[in-house]
């Protein structure tokens, strides 16, 4: 089967700093991939190249059959199919929750207002905050805001969802509600690429775990395999630090 994400010999430099070194990665449709690694390992950069928030200097990325290059139309097409949830939520503070979610479908996919609002309400139900539709982001808690962010990304009906440390900015008691939403999403068959430190989540839901360090993929495999029997020494020392 043709992988939905295909990364071939991907290299990226920030000035003189080599942040992604010869990345080769294939993700199948419906797969849930969790990326772990120390800070500065390039894991956030990696997933941000998939929707071209970061450019690559060398290599090739194909998303859902579309080649990611400098062609504007390709970039736009890819971004419509790839949704992203950020660590700092990035909700639009001057719009209500409902407006946040319906904005992109209305002006990018050109849906009529009623259709967009209907889909939006369904998604809000799905992440369990339908009653907050008319509130402004500042009036919601962190966990609620992140769930709105997930609904906002889902409103575009993407084929792939990227998560960049979605719970790292949350207070501990709110992490659970966001992870629940993500688990439900995974079970429904969405292709997900998640950068996180939540090992419990990875164990429960991931099809594959990737360990990155210093811009390279050091090790990948099924969660049980990587967590319980890490092969490489760097994986072992990282896990030892994280899992005490």
């Amino acid at each position: 089967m043709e992988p939905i994400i295909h990364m071939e010999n991907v290299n990226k430099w920030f000035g003189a700093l080599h942040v992604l070194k010869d990345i080769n990665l294939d993700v199948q449709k419906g797969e849930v991939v969790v990326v772990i690694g120390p800070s500065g390992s390039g894991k956030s950069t990696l997933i941000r190249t998939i929707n071209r928030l970061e450019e690559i200097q060398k290599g090739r990325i194909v998303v859902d059959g579309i080649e990611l290059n400098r062609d504007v139309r390709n970039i736009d097409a890819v971004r419509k199919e790839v949704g992203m949830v950020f660590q700092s939520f990035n909700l639009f503070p001057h719009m209500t929750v409902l407006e946040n979610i319906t904005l992109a479908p209305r002006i990018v996919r050109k849906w009529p207002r009623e259709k967009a609002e209907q889909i939006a309400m369904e998604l809000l139900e799905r992440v369990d905050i339908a009653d907050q539709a008319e509130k402004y982001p500042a009036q919601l808690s962190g966990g609620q805001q992140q769930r709105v962010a997930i609904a906002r990304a889902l409103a575009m009906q993407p084929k792939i969802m990227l998560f960049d440390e979605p719970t790292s900015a949350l207070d501990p008691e709110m992490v659970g509600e966001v992870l629940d939403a993500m688990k439900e999403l995974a079970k429904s068959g969405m292709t997900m690429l998640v950068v996180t430190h939540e090992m419990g989540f990875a164990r429960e839901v991931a099809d594959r775990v990737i360990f990155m360090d210093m811009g390279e993929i050091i090790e990948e495999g099924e969660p049980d395999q990587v967590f319980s029997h890490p092969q490489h020494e760097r994986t072992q020392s990282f896990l030892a630090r994280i899992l005490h």
Partner: protein
Amino acid sequence: MTKAVPFWKDERKLAVIFQAILLAVVLVVLLFLGYMASTNMADRNLKFSFGFLSEPADFQIYEGYTVAKEQGRWILRLYHPSDQVWQAMVTGFLNTLRVSFLGIVLTTILGVLVGVGRLSSNWLVNRFSFAYVELIRNTPLLVQMVFWYLAVFLLLPPLRTAPRFHGLIVSNKGVLIPWLVPDAAWANFAPYFYGGLGLWILLWAVRSFWKPPRWLYWVAPVALWGLGLILVGSLPLEWSVPRVQGFRVEGGMQLSPEFSSVLLALVLYTASYIAEIVRGAIQSLPKGQWEAPASLGLSYAQTLRLIILPQAMRIVIPPLGNQYLNLTKNSSLAIAIAFPEIMSVYETTVNQAGHSIEGILIVMAAYLSLSLFISALINWYNVKVALVGVAR
């Protein structure tokens, strides 16, 4: 292998294309405007040239110095109507500098005082400062300038009946102040004076090789000056006190009513803005900067002087610099009350000789260079006093 992307969809090429179009549009518009302008000027028999600058000015400027070449050297002297137009403009520019420089010094002092007064625990001082700031800021500067001129300075008593106070005379011919001037002995003292200055510069220049102790910087020049005084035998300066002779005044420093109005208006107006900047800067300091010195036993005045103001002054430098620029540019309003700074001179020139556009371009160039100079100075000072280690 990456497929070749058609260039009209390529992100980077699109950017270049859009910018090229924009540039072309701007050029076309400029060319069109230029064409229209030259046709219209030809129709009205106007010629665009800067030749008028070397024609004799033929009008009087009542105060101000200009530069002239005499006996092969450039000197500074009073303006005379037989001077050329460009010399008249230089006079105007020097007057602009004069009122701006003095204005900046005075307004800083007043602004800081009022700014601190805004935060005073003394209710009267507090409310008075507030009223001052609100009143002055909400009225146009031009109205204030015209008011001071027409309604105050021109209505002062004439010389004969003007009030005097130890040589200070306040009249409708201006404010006259006793002033120190060099006297006959200056010629002998001058070498010591300049020598002292030179010593100071020398010490500063060699500091990368040999760091002199801080006290030497001022002891050395002062010692040289003291030596000079002893050797010359008398003070090389004397008081020049204004004395009324009939309808004129001799001696002292004469500040014309025009100059005084412009200066007063500029100083009061800019000070109200500086006061708010200073107040904002002081209030932006964390409360701990007040509490810590208090707990160490420092008084309010000491805290203000040693802890608060030094920090506040650093924050204040960029917006303060901005106000200095404003003051300099606002001096152009003096055209309304005939103080001969550069705008007034420009208008007189235009009335005599036309060439309004060439003239205004010269004036704008003068202001632009002055602005750039002051900005550069402020930036340099800002970098110099920045707190070590604080990222900007």
